[in-house]
């Protein structure tokens, strides 16, 4: 896909208000989060003067886009289909412009172990990991494989589904005897589990936006969950987590984190917007954890906090992204 470079049309020059479809919902674990993101995006776009509507990614979507074409689509779907590139590939086939990364890049970013490989190959730091399907444990014996994992990666360990967001299925395993059960519950989310070395430090959300001048990092958001673990409840219950935007980092570490996020965005071929999750270790090193091509945009999400910390209104930023995609498509 060619990167769109057209600037947003000047206000008042458009023949009609930009018509946008916000995609939200979907048929994944993250449906609720997506509906919440979609509602927030819709409100922000309407406030910014966009003629926006929210639609689910269901059997009515494609006929709906034919009957009432959108100038551009904003994908607020989280989880598979919305983030794994599949839906974007269909929108490409349909010739419908959308905000965000192209299908192939999404496919790569969606696969957390694959994305980590790319990031590490680019010289960036990411905690050691191994990702395996259930069949490997069955064939080689779970005890032998888990024994090797612990020996190589140590404890604590992070056990995560190899794809997916919102911290669903993610567990920190501190005691050896909890590891088999953690594997069992994680495999309920998908066929492949990623086990990652735990890095102690400050959790950061690093938003990146490209409004036409290349990807730019927004101020880092620092995450300090009351419980110590940034799990589903800590993410979506206001009051359970303390956020600092900008993060309380030295200028040097902040610059390094920003550079890492921009480099990740570029190395993986992402477009328009992304959110990289990272950890700053006590020695100041910034470790990449994962990147989201469809970052959460709910009332408790970090991407909107970063936009605000940069002094912008979320609706205006999203409207500019939509306008760029619409303009590129109409040329």
């Amino acid at each position, binding site marked *: 896909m060619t990167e769109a470079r057209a600037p947003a049309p000047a206000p008042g020059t458009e023949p009609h208000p930009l018509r946008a479809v916000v995609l939200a919902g979907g048929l994944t674990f993250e449906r609720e989060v997506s509906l919440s993101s979609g509602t927030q995006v819709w409100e922000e776009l309407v406030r910014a003067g966009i003629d926006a509507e929210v639609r689910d990614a269901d059997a009515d979507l494609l006929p709906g886009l034919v009957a009432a074409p959108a100038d551009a689509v904003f994908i607020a779907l989280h989880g598979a289909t919305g983030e794994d590139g599949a839906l974007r590939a269909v929108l490409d086939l349909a010739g419908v412009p959308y905000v965000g990364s192209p299908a192939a890049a999404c496919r790569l970013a969606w696969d957390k172990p694959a994305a980590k490989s790319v990031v590490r190959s680019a010289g960036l730091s990411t905690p050691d990991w191994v990702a395996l399907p259930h069949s490997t444990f069955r064939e080689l014996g779970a005890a032998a494989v888990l024994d090797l994992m612990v020996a190589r990666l140590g404890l604590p360990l992070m056990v995560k589904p190899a794809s997916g967001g919102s911290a669903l299925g993610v567990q920190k395993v501190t005691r050896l005897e909890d590891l088999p059960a953690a594997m069992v519950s994680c495999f309920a989310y998908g066929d492949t589990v990623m086990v990652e070395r735990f890095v102690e430090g400050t959790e950061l959300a690093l938003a990146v936006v490209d409004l036409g001048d290349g990807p730019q990092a927004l101020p880092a958001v620092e995450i300090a969950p009351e419980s110590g673990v940034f799990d589903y409840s800590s993410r979506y*219950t206001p009051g359970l987590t303390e956020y600092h935007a900008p993060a309380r980092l030295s200028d040097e570490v902040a610059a390094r984190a920003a*550079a890492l996020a921009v480099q990740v965005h570029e190395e993986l071929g992402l477009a328009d917007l992304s959110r990289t999750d990272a950890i700053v270790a006590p020695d100041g090193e910034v470790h990449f954890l994962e990147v989201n091509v469809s970052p959460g945009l709910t009332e408790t999400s970090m991407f909107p906090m970063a936009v605000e910390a940069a002094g912008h209104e979320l609706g205006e930023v999203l409207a500019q992204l939509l306008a760029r995609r619409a303009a590129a498509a109409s040329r």
Partner: protein
Amino acid sequence: MNPSGQPGTHLTTGAHPHVVPRHPRLDPLADRYAARTHGMKTSEIRALFSVVSRPEVVSLAGGMPAVTALPLDAVGSMIGDLVSGMGAQTLQYGSGQGDPRLRERICDVMALEGITGASPSEVVVTVGSQQGLDLVTRVFCDPGDVILAEGPSYVGALGVFQASEARVRHVAMDDHGLIPEALEEALLDCRANGDRVKFLYTVPNFHNPAGVTLSEPRREAIVALAEKYDLLIIEDNPYGLLGFEHEPLRALRARNNQRVIYLGSFSKTFSPGLRVGWVLAPLAVREKLVLATEAQVLCPPSLTQYAVARYLDTQPWREQIKLFTELYRERRDATLESLSGLMPAGTAWTRPEGGFYVWLKLPHGLDAKLMQPRAVNAHVAYVPGIGFFADGNGREYMRLSYCYPEPDQIREGVRRLARVIEAELDLHSTFDRVDTGTFRAVRASGHEARSFDSGTIVGPANSDTYEDGRA
């Protein structure tokens, strides 16, 4: 830190005039909430239920009555007439105790289950029987008081009890309902511990979630125990008229009108959306309930009370209940036949003779809550059993509701569920026998795995990631 100082950052700085700085915890009132709100968190379980609204998913989760089987046109014109012809009454405040005409009709309904001597003056109309239970609990329970309830118990009741800061002690049940011997043991235990038991909460007919019905001999035994131990019983009976096999058994309240407070509801026999239920209580209790409900809601909604009374006066409601019952029986049969044909060995379930629910026990070691993401992926939904216990038990159980989906959908849902359980069994067979005590981390350190140095294995830096070709 100035964002413009970051490399590659060209966005303008300076606060936008419309941007209001956020509180760091996103909630400036975070430190002000009552202690009892601490458990009120966004939960993964709720998030997983979100997909149930999609038609691709077979939901065996929600207990939604089949309201489309009602004569909707007739009900619609009836409600329209109530507004256009009687708006002065139906759109106005009403009595805190509830509309007198409706309370008379409620006594007629209760007579079907053997409660023949009740007076309309003993009835308090409530916003669903849920509000009735809340009122009763407020009137009787102080923080720390003990409530006895079946294990499992109705999740909505446990929520009410928790809000009142009462403690729940579960009493075992089996295929014939609450076990009297277990009840007596619980009463003696509580007495020995100095715990104050305020009441027994029970759903005797087609229990939610267990699907079982309290047998006739046990009804007598439990009422006798109430006499012996000075026990108050809260009898919650929303499903009693929805039996498939026999006429309704006599209510506990019909056997003892001083020790039993009865909760009834039109949610399953007419409409849950109207939110009309009731409490039948001795006069002294009734007085307190009326004062409590006035403090809470002033009065139950007038329009829906009139709608229920008019429905009972003008529509063939007994025939409608028969129609509902036939519909649910067919769905129950589809559920039980599918379960028998498809469930893997080691799975067990109850055989309800009425109502909405089957209570299913998973093969040993499986956890219905942890299995839920797999079920969402397979497009089938159920309610994990853990929610029906106040003490963290019930992990190996789930509630299946057959009231809402059509028989074909039920069969497909059970098929999907069986595959989910089989996949989970396969997973457990891989991981359950792992003895982490033999791991080299343990051997190396002697006791503490944490102290093991992960660098002792010789090998390349870890990048030997499994790739399945998806990238």
